[in-house]
């Protein structure tokens, strides 16, 4: 099991290069960021540990970014898929090297994780049930709104600015009066509950990319105009790692900057999202 | 036979699968008669007894207890009701006692009256205590069955059946699971019940009891009643050679 360890080196980058692959954690709950390629099969010559997934078995924007990291280090990219909780909690016990999973940089997460520079930015938007007839944020006053449990979206709905942990400048709207928050397992369940005809809530908050995907899938929801806030999404490293992550972080930062500059990230964004999300919104 | 039959069995057959266990049994037992049923192991004594209160379903024929008649034609709800009525008229005492282990002696005895007849609990306790007293076990009323000797268990079982005030008592080898020493106490209780005028059908190996208490002895063999008469007649001048060999066995076998 697990990734790291093996090498005697005390430096994570060195260990990765020595073993010839980097083990990236990502959460394949979300298309198009990160999801399974159910047609792909494991290549026979892979260096990935037998219980890790290979690049052939995963797809999505995050996956392509992760592969770019591996390529730049000259090693193979492999994937671990622990639960989101296990990733965000830190203390990875060196079981994987880095998280490339559209993780929002927040101040609380920074207590246990180190972040790279952002590799893209997504606006958080409000989606409402088409049948509700609501067409503005104000129209949601006094209604129930859904969000994935323990996400930044839930924190925003709860007016928990500390939990949200974003700079004032990235927050564009405040929560309508008297909203009841309904946290479900993931924001995907929010969309599905509305599609199934449940009436426990009339709207949900999540990233624009997810809402776009929901609408493309034909779910009976509409997207309210205007982002409620914007998230900086980055790769994350474990602060409690027994190996030094500094040199790897530097490498990843360097790579992301280069990819922003030469347009490789924009290209990937257009490929997976059909819009370019790699430009900081306040720029 | 002087009085009306209280148990009447007509053309009764019983099969277990392909095995023909009771073969066209016809029997009438008048009120207050004490009948002892004897026969070799496997001759069908228990099955006959259990057909009377429908613990076994007869395959064919009629059983009538105190005017309630159930035959092969009786079906459905009516049959259900009639069988229930027959069971209220009969009390049964098993070889293995079958006391309810999760209830005290007193609870065992009042269970029937209270649950089945809906008698007031207080009244049931009174009745139960009378009967426990008459089997000499009132002092054990708050014990659990486990703590009783076999003889005591069987006497409680008799008290339990009596407290339902049945018209007929059926005993299936009530003493054969007991130490010889304890048999006496149970037989004495049974004698007492008999002398108080209860109709009784008793499957037993206790020849002494049969001789002393029974009005009539019936011998079974291979599912048929082969001999029927007063104890003295059966014991002293059996007509059937099978009865003879049975009696010899009893004499040599018992202690």
């Amino acid at each position, binding site marked *: 099991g697990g990734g790291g360890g093996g090498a005697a080196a005390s430096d994570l980058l060195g260990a990765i290069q020595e073993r010839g692959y980097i083990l990236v954690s990502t959460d394949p709950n979300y298309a198009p960021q990160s999801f399974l390629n159910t047609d792909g099969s494991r290549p026979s010559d892979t260096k990935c540990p037998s219980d890790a997934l290979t690049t052939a078995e995963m797809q999505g924007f995050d996956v392509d970014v992760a592969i770019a990291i591996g390529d730049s280090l000259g090693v193979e990219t492999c994937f671990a898929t622990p639960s989101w909780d296990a990733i965000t*909690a830190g203390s990875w016990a060196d079981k994987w090297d880095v998280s490339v999973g559209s993780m929002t940089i927040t101040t609380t997460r920074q207590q246990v994780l180190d972040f790279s520079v952002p590799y893209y930015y997504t606006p958080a938007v409000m989606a409402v049930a088409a049948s509700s007839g609501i067409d503005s944020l104000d129209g949601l006053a006094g209604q129930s709104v859904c969000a994935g*449990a323990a996400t930044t979206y839930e924190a925003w709905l709860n007016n928990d600015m500390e939990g949200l942990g974003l700079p004032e400048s990235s927050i564009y709207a405040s929560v309508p009066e008297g909203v009841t928050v309904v946290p479900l397992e993931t924001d995907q369940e929010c969309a599905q*509950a509305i599609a199934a005809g*449940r009436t426990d809530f009339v709207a949900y908050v999540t990233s624009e990319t997810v809402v776009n995907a929901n609408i493309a899938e034909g779910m009976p929801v509409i997207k309210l105009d205007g982002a409620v806030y914007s998230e900086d999404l980055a790769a994350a490293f474990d602060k409690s790692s027994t190996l030094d992550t500094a040199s790897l972080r530097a490498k990843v930062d360097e790579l992301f900057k280069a990819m922003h500059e030469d347009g490789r990230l924009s290209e990937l964004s257009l490929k997976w999202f059909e819009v370019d999300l790699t430009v900081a919104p306040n720029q | 036979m002087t009085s009306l039959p209280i148990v009447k069995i007509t053309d009764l057959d019983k099969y277990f699968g392909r095995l023909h266990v009771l073969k066209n049994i016809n029997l009438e037992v008048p009120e207050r008669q004490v009948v002892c049923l004897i026969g070799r192991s496997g001759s069908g004594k228990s099955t006959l007894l259990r057909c009377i209160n429908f613990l076994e379903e007869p395959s064919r024929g009629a059983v009538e207890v105190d005017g309630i008649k159930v035959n092969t034609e009786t079906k459905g709800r009516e049959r259900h009701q009639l069988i229930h009525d027959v069971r209220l008229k009969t009390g049964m005492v098993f070889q293995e006692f079958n006391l*309810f282990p999760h209830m005290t002696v007193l609870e065992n005895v009042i269970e029937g009256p209270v649950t089945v007849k809906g008698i007031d609990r207080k009244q049931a306790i009174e009745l139960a205590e009378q009967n426990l007293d008459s089997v000499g076990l009132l002092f054990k009323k708050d014990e659990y069955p486990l703590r009783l000797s076999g003889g005591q268990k069987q006497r409680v079982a008799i008290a*339990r059946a009596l407290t339902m005030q049945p018209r007929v008592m059926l005993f299936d080898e009530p003493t054969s699971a007991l130490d010889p020493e304890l048999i006496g106490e149970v037989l004495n209780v049974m004698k007492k019940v008999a002398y108080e005028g209860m109709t009784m059908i008793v499957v037993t190996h206790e020849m002494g009891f049969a001789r002393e208490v029974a009005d009539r002895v019936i011998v079974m063999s291979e599912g048929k009643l082969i001999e029927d008469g007063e104890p003295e007649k059966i014991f002293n001048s059996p007509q059937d050679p099978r009865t003879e060999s049975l009696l010899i066995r009893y004499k040599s076998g018992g202690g």
Partner: protein
Amino acid sequence: MTSATQQEASPSHAELLYQAQLRKERLFRAHVGVSWVILLLILIFLFSGQKIQIGQLEYQTIQLDSEFILKNLIFIAGGLGQTLLISILSISVAVTLALLAALGRLSNFPPIYAISAFYVSLIRGTPLYLQIFFFFLALPQLGINLSGVVAGVTALGLNYGAYMSETFRAGLSSVGKGQREAALALGMTSSQTMRRIVLPQALRFAIPPMGNDFISMTKDSALVSATGFVHELMWRAVKVGRAQFNNLEALIIAAMFYWALTLILTYFQSKLETRLAKGDR
């Protein structure tokens, strides 16, 4: 025969032996108690964050954030009521269904028998998570819109009912035929026989596995919070754990409450076992 050199032991000797026996039993209980305390201390030590040195090796035990624990204890404890409520509701549904299903398996009316068997097979055969999901997200498509709690309790009750019915079935088959016959011979109806004679005895064997079900139900009740409106122990623990990156601490707080519940349940279970064993020992 050797001649009897000794007279009958004096009563005080009997008393001495008896006292020795009692002492031995008390000693056993005391030793067990001490062992428990030692084990508890080891457990606590494991989470004390202490450093220990064994020869060359230096060990660091697990460090918990005690400030976090103190700060969030009350918040997490606030879920206890919901956990209890859902557990009690679900277990009531489950016991009822289990009994019906177990009796259905004894029925000689084919549809009843088949429905019982089908129910047990289908529900044991599929994941609880799907069942909750089904009641919450698929039933609305049939126009049946259950609230989160109702959907959750129904699903949990159905699920545990199926498992428990197997336990009951085993218990029922442990009661001898003679008991049924004695009850029938007294004129009891089959339902009276079942209720008054067979079930109380069947329970004796069913109690320990049922205790298992009750205890694991307290934990599975957490799944109901997936429906969004139930904020029980585990939900609260996961929430604060996630938000403040102290999952282990948060889970341990929840675990302490669950353990307390379990100890209470176990206590009543052993009381009940002793009571039902009254006629048995």
